[in-house]
């Protein structure tokens, strides 16, 4: 028992020390949590997001911080595992006591963390795609990327202008793919387009020719859309070329990164997809109001990391900047005050487009935020 008692005293002493250390730190810095999928299957999202946040927090701190205080970024790597994400969310709230969170690389991890932050009353700006994150609106949850529904609408609007009315759809069964497929099915009727073939593939499948053969054989096929993300769309694109399907292929914003073109190779030629302006930053006309923001972010990111810019890092940039502006307007680090100001964000120009949030819209982007791109000569081209 004596040993046990000693242990307790030791633990109490340690806890006391920890508190003394923590106290001045808490007063001097603003803690921002960032649970991201830096490794694992969604590392291509989390990695640029983490780099972007670290880069810009450093930059903001060098410029004097926010409201006279330094920012302290706490990054956890959930490896796209929803269970881990939830554990980290709890740790951010209870141990680290962050005032706001910018993170959640995938829809799965985001959805797992929402209940934790909603209960704790911590504003949470998600970097994931699916519309379910903000629909229905949750008090403390926001997001910066376009939704998959908007991507569907952008694709269908483009098809409509080309007189395409009968399309095939091939989608993955992963979280993003499944959600986007459902959203596409919901809005496709508004554009007078009929889906004549609807096929799926598993997230780690390596051959989609059987599904594409069925789509190819559908009567009156005029185009194919592939709501998907990861390596699946690259294989679909290669198989598409292999089978010699000659109607237009539309990909989603989920593959809007240079690695898609590298993986799909020649087969990517002529593929159309909606994406944010960031991908074609230099190609935007000079009078485009978004040009300054995207060119600045792109050059900063590419200089610091030596890697090509991706839209996913841009979402993290948008999230951090919306949060910083909200904290400046609120003039405090009270989570509730920050939340109220995030909701009032209007006219914010980010890498994803103009953000006008409201109590019913915790994303605040409209269709103009998407640009329709076509891959030509191994590079993105603006087609509007």
């Amino acid at each position, binding site marked *: 028992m004596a040993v046990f008692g000693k242990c307790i005293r030791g633990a109490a002493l340690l806890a006391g020390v920890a508190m003394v250390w923590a106290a001045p730190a808490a007063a001097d810095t603003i803690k921002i949590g960032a649970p991201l999928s830096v*490794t*694992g*299957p969604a*590392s*291509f999202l989390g*990695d640029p997001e983490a780099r972007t946040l670290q880069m810009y927090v450093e930059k903001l701190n060098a410029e004097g911080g926010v409201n006279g205080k330094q920012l302290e970024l706490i990054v956890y790597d959930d490896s796209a595992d929803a269970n881990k994400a939830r554990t980290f969310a709890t740790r951010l709230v209870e141990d680290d006591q962050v005032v706001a969170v910018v993170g959640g690389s995938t829809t799965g991890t985001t959805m797992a963390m929402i209940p934790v932050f909603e209960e704790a009353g911590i504003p949470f700006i998600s970097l994931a795609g699916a519309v379910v994150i903000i629909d229905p609106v949750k008090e403390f949850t926001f997001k910066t990327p376009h939704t998959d529904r908007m991507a569907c609408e952008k694709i269908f609007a483009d098809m409509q202008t080309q007189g395409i009315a009968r399309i095939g759809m091939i989608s993955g*069964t992963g979280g993003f793919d499944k959600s986007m497929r459902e959203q596409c099915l919901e809005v496709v009727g508004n554009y007078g387009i009929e889906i004549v073939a609807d*096929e*799926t*593939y*598993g997230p*780690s499948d*390596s*051959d989609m*020719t*059987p*599904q594409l*053969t*069925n789509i190819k*054989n559908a009567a009156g096929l005029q185009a194919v859309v592939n709501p998907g993300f*990861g*390596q699946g769309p*690259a*294989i679909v694109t*290669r198989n598409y*070329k*292999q*089978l*010699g399907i000659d109607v237009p292929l539309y990909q989603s914003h989920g593959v809007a990164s240079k*690695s898609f073109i*590298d*993986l799909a*190779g*020649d*087969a990517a030629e002529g593929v159309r997809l909606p994406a944010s302006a960031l991908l074609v930053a230099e190609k935007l006309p000079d009078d485009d109001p978004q040009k300054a923001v995207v060119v600045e972010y792109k050059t900063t990111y590419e200089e610091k990391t030596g890697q090509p810019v991706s839209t996913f890092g841009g979402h993290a940039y948008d999230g951090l900047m919306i949060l910083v502006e909200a904290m400046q307007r609120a003039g405090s680090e009270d989570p509730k005050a920050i939340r109220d100001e995030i909701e009032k964000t209007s006219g914010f120009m980010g890498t994803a487009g103009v953000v006008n949030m409201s109590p019913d819209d915790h994303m605040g982007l409209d269709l103009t935020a998407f640009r329709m791109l076509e891959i030509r000569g191994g590079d993105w081209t603006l087609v509007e």
Partner: protein
Amino acid sequence: MPELLQFCVSGLTVGAVYALVALGFTIIYNASDVVNFAQGEFVMIGGMTTVFATAAGVPLPLAALGAVLVAMVVGLLLHRLAIEPARGASPVTLIIITIGASIFLRGLAQVVFDKQFHSLPAFSGNTPIRFGGAAILPQSFWVLGGAAVIVAVLWAFFNRTLIGKAVLATAANRLAARLVGINTSFVMGLSFVMSAAIGAVAGILVTPITLTSYDVGMLLALKGFAAAMLGGMGNPLGAVVGGLAVGLLEALGAGYISSTYKDAIAFIVILIVLFALPGGLFGKASVERV
């Protein structure tokens, strides 16, 4: 009927890879009773090493050869550092060790290589060959041909060489093999090296079609294991037939029934077969020696 041909070609190409993974399982299982769940990682090492070597300017044939050698060294190290020290442990313990090794290799690949997907240029171009309404990639022939060559070489090795016969003898009865002067530890090491080489060749052949990344091994190991079970664990012919069958089942299931449930369809058929023939298609009924 052109669809049927297309489905079959897809299924056979994917199935050939499963077959090679299943062969790797079989060789190690025969020599040591261990189901080596790091088998998929050999496929990954083959593909990734080739990708990174070619990116560094090494010509493709040389890069491929180097990748096979790297995989063989990894296979040997796996045996010497993880399996050999635990000899005498039950097969279950050894299987758990291989699962640990597979997680370790995957982690190592993340650090040594990276976390992105990679591709290799197809060996003889990307222009599909049209045959009876089906479009076949030239690379599919490489995969199928490569698998056929490996099977032939293995057959010759086991039936025509002394070392091959020593492996078979060890598989049949380890104690008796040792009594007639076969170095069973060497044979087991050899079986790991051979499995690694086969896995690496599969990885190199298939990367231009299926892409590769640090974590492709896990799924391949599962499918290859299912193929080996379907064919009858320990039977090389069964491994090949099982692999091709799993690939065909997936492709035909996706094409004719439902792409959403294609994995389920393949596994249901495997379950039904195992229910009727617990030893697999070519497996011997298990006999307990008393």
